[in-house]
């Protein structure tokens, strides 16, 4: 049963924040839903894909976030409702389009869900995307619980159509990945026939400033609507000792802190529906009744600074207020918030002793944790082709001996920057930047840079962003080796399809856009090897480090998890217990200590290595690295 497409108004479901957003999109009657995978946003489109055939909506993963937003916008230009979802970096990629679309406007509704990752737990950066709303002067709604995650999407579509502007719905990991009760609404069916009205083109030139003026007028209207939004809320005394202004996931922490300290009649909590534009009159009303104000929000001091602007304009009326938050240091200005931070701060401000756990309990907890939860590095799966790739890179660069380095990129293979890949990645910024930076490095020999340059790029990353960089490298005769790690998957984000796989999100076959063909068309020499063959891969990399120009080596081997899902029977390997010399000089636990595949176990009792049959995928790479040839392959 497709749960999210249930036409059952009033039924309560336990939904993940991202599922609630998806349900909101369904209830809004969106026709086109687009995205590129990126945590913490991927579940939204993943959920919509499941419902797409049932609901007759077009849901797909597109090659990158800019194209995804362009596709969603196309629906909105012809009177349908379009939706796009992405993580903070995706918004960066889509931003040029968005910062033009704000001026050229849309006709149907367009909602853009942006999910930030405070602390960058699964990201290359930490970023507060809400600043794009300020820069683009676009409405930014901040759902603060699961019901709002659904309902505010509907609000966003209505607002978008009223204003003729894309509307941003903002979420963070804390909301996107937690679960709560959501009461379903009715599903709106799209009854529009799409039509492009040529009398109303979407173009900003020749006078973008005029279009800008029109945008400003729209935002004045937007403010009027936001002031009256039912999603603004205030709880607490009329004249609170402490006024907290919050938005989005910040509200969870505040409610928990107030409850923990039983401070309901001392603290007022103002939760705003939108942080751009801020509901100015509502805020001024509450500031007038307060003396101390605390700002609680995930991300940067966006809400905080916005309110300070409003305050600055009215300081003569409001008098001196004590303002606390991220920019004044009461709360950390980096990293994800947690309830303890807010509880401790409130306890300090209000002089309330916090209910704490007894010391022995805390100590016992730490002891148990250290015994049962050993510290672990991020690791590649057993059988991951990237482990073999980084081993070959490490070997080739050691043999080459000229201090070669690796410009890296984003994906599972991004973990190569750490112990999982023996730190064989030296730069990592945005999608496709590995190839871009390498194409620059490959031009620096005229200044005396003698170190060989390698770029690594995944298959999905390649289609997303690396192609222009490769064209650039070819045109400028930059000298480096591009390793494309083709594991036939967008693995890190959950195995969404990409253009090379020949199928769509809904599983239909589609033309495959050939990766090697693209590289050859650009004019690069292209070779393909299986990374599981360590010897051959090392030699291929080594051989390509001296010649000039850009060369492409495709390391093609299916992701171990994709293989497992395909049900292909794994072959087996075994450690010959008589041949294994274990800890002795000559090996020193090379396979478990250095290679570190989780399929290998060090048995301290026997002093030898053995295979974990539950983990091992039979890839056979360890067979090649054992110095005693004690590991052997067997037929499954």
């Amino acid at each position: 049963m497709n749960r999210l497409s249930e036409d059952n108004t009033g039924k309560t479901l336990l939904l993940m924040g991202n599922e609630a957003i998806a349900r909101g999109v369904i209830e809004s009657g969106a026709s086109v839903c687009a995205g590129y995978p990126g945590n913490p946003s991927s579940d939204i489109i993943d959920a919509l894909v499941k419902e797409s055939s049932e609901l007759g909506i077009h849901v797909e993963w597109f090659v990158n976030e800019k194209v995804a937003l362009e596709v969603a916008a196309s629906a909105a230009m012809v009177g349908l409702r379009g939706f796009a979802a992405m993580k903070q970096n995706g918004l960066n990629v889509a931003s040029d389009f968005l910062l033009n679309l704000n001026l050229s406007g849309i006709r149907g509704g367009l909602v853009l869900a942006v999910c930030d990752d405070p602390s960058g737990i699964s990201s290359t950066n930490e970023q507060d995307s809400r600043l794009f709303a300020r820069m683009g002067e676009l409405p930014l709604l901040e759902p603060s619980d699961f019901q709002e995650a659904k309902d505010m999407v509907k609000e966003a579509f209505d607002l978008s159509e009223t204003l003729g502007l894309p509307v941003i719905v903002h979420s963070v990991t804390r909301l996107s990945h937690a679960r709560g009760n959501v009461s379903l609404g009715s599903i709106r069916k799209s009854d529009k026939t799409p039509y492009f009205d040529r009398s109303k083109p979407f173009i900003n030139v020749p006078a973008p400033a005029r279009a800008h003026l029109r945008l400003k007028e729209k935002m004045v209207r937007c403010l009027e609507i936001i002031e009256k939004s039912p999603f603004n809320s205030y709880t607490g005394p009329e004249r609170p000792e402490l006024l907290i202004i919050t938005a989005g996931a910040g509200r969870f922490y505040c409610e928990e802190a107030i409850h923990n300290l039983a401070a309901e009649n001392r603290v007022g909590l103002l939760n705003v529906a939108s942080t751009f534009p801020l509901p100015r009159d509502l805020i001024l009303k509450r500031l007038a009744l307060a003396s101390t104000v605390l700002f609680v929000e995930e991300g940067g001091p966006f809400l905080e600074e916005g309110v300070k602007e409003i305050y600055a304009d009215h300081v003569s009326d409001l008098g001196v207020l004590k303002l606390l938050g991220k920019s004044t240091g009461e709360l950390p200005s980096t990293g994800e918030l947690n309830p303890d931070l807010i509880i401790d701060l409130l306890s300090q401000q209000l002089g309330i002793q916090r209910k704490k756990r007894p010391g022995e309990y805390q100590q016992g907890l730490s002891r148990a944790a250290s015994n049962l939860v050993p510290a672990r590095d991020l690791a590649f799966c057993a059988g991951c082709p990237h482990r073999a790739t980084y081993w070959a890179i490490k070997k080739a660069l050691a043999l080459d001996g000229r201090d070669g380095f690796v410009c890296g990129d984003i994906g599972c293979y991004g973990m190569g920057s750490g112990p999982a890949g023996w730190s064989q990645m030296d730069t990592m910024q945005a999608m496709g930047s590995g190839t871009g930076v390498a194409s620059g490095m490959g031009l620096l020999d005229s200044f005396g840079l003698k170190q060989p340059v390698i770029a690594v790029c995944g298959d999905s990353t390649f289609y997303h962003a690396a192609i222009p960089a490769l064209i650039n490298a070819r045109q400028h005769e930059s000298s480096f080796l591009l390793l494309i790690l083709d594991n036939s998957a967008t693995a890190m984000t959950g195995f969404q399809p990409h253009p090379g796989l020949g199928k769509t999100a809904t599983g239909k076959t589609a033309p495959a856009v050939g990766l090697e063909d693209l590289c050859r068309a650009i004019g690069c020499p292209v070779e393909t090897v299986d990374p599981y063959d360590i010897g051959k891969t090392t030699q291929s990399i080594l051989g390509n480090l001296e010649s000039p120009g850009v060369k492409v080596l495709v390391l093609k081997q299916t992701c171990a998890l994709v293989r497992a899902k395909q049900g292909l029977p794994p072959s087996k390997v075994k450690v010959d217990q008589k041949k294994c010399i274990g800890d002795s000089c000559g090996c020193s636990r090379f396979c478990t200590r250095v290679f570190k595949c989780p399929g290998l176990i060090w048995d301290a009792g026997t002093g030898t290595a053995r295979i974990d049959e539950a983990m091992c995928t039979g890839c056979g790479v360890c067979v090649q690295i054992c110095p005693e040839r004690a590991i052997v392959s067997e037929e499954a």
Partner: protein
Amino acid sequence: MTLEPTTLQLKKLVLDKGLCTQCGACHNLCPHYLGHGDRTVVFHDCDKTSGACYEVCPRTPTNLEALRQVMFDPADITAELGALKGLYITRASDPSIRGKAQHGGTVSALIQFALKEGIIEKAVLAGEEEILLPAGRGFSDPERVVDAAGSRFVVSPTVAAFNELAREDIETLGVVATPCQAMALAKMWISEVSRIHEASKKIGLVLGLFCGWAFNWKKLKNLLAEKLELETITRMDIPPSRFHSMIVETRDGRVEISIDELRDCVRPSCNYCFDMTAEFSDISVGSARLPSGWDESRGWNHLIVRTEKGQKLLEMARDAGCIEFHDVPEENLDRLKTAAAGKKREAAARLAQKSGTPGDLLYVPADDPLLRDCLTIP
């Protein structure tokens, strides 16, 4: 001994100090070291603070006295040339061996004989991996030994091949070794690491080669490539120093290259070597010197017998008629001693310079009694 991993110790003491001779002793012992071209690299650090690699490396601190005690009769020991039971001038009796050899063909003849007689089961010789780059290979067919004849001017990591072959079900191996390689094999005799000691039992015979220095592979290749087509090289030789040149025979003719040009191509680690005659072997062989001049002496070898085993081999080979002998001019022994002592003095001076402390000769014990006899240590 420090508490750092052995790989790090070797890196600091030998590799980073430019002392590595690429003898290959640390290759094929474990997967932490890799050899490529004429370089040794540490692939990944080991976690052991003592190990075989450190023990066998000829450039880690070496107890020369202990080696001499195990290998030689103290009565035979000379300060300049090591153990010397006898000095001979020899050549292979078989002209076809001489035709393929560098000079007298003595090494090829002795190895061929040792294989035929079953004194050794396999010989570890220098084959060719790439143009001008040798690698160690095992030979069991006596007729194929001449394929490996001829001097190499770039060092061959022959001990790497020995390490590999020693794992096989084999009782005795013969090795043709440069002085640094012979040193590595000798250090295996006194190693306390059991697997090294087991491997050392398989050393049936060490035929050492006289050596002045070797070239860096890339530099030699690049220099020669400027002057000729590398694929056409048929033979290379460095005549006695008074000729001040290297001769390269090619299919298109003969090219003479001044030693001055080649100086920059010398492998830097060779500047720190004190052993001209491969002192730690059973028999050592080099090119001969005769009063009649190079045209005659180039067809003969100097041969030093050092051990009982070497003595026996030479006598058996003589009796079988595969080795011919020439009178040894009286002055040759002294001349060899002078040349050998000169190399020790130069090495000592350079080692003291590298260490920064007079009296600190890095891997060589400065208080070694025999070394002191040859040197004037400030």
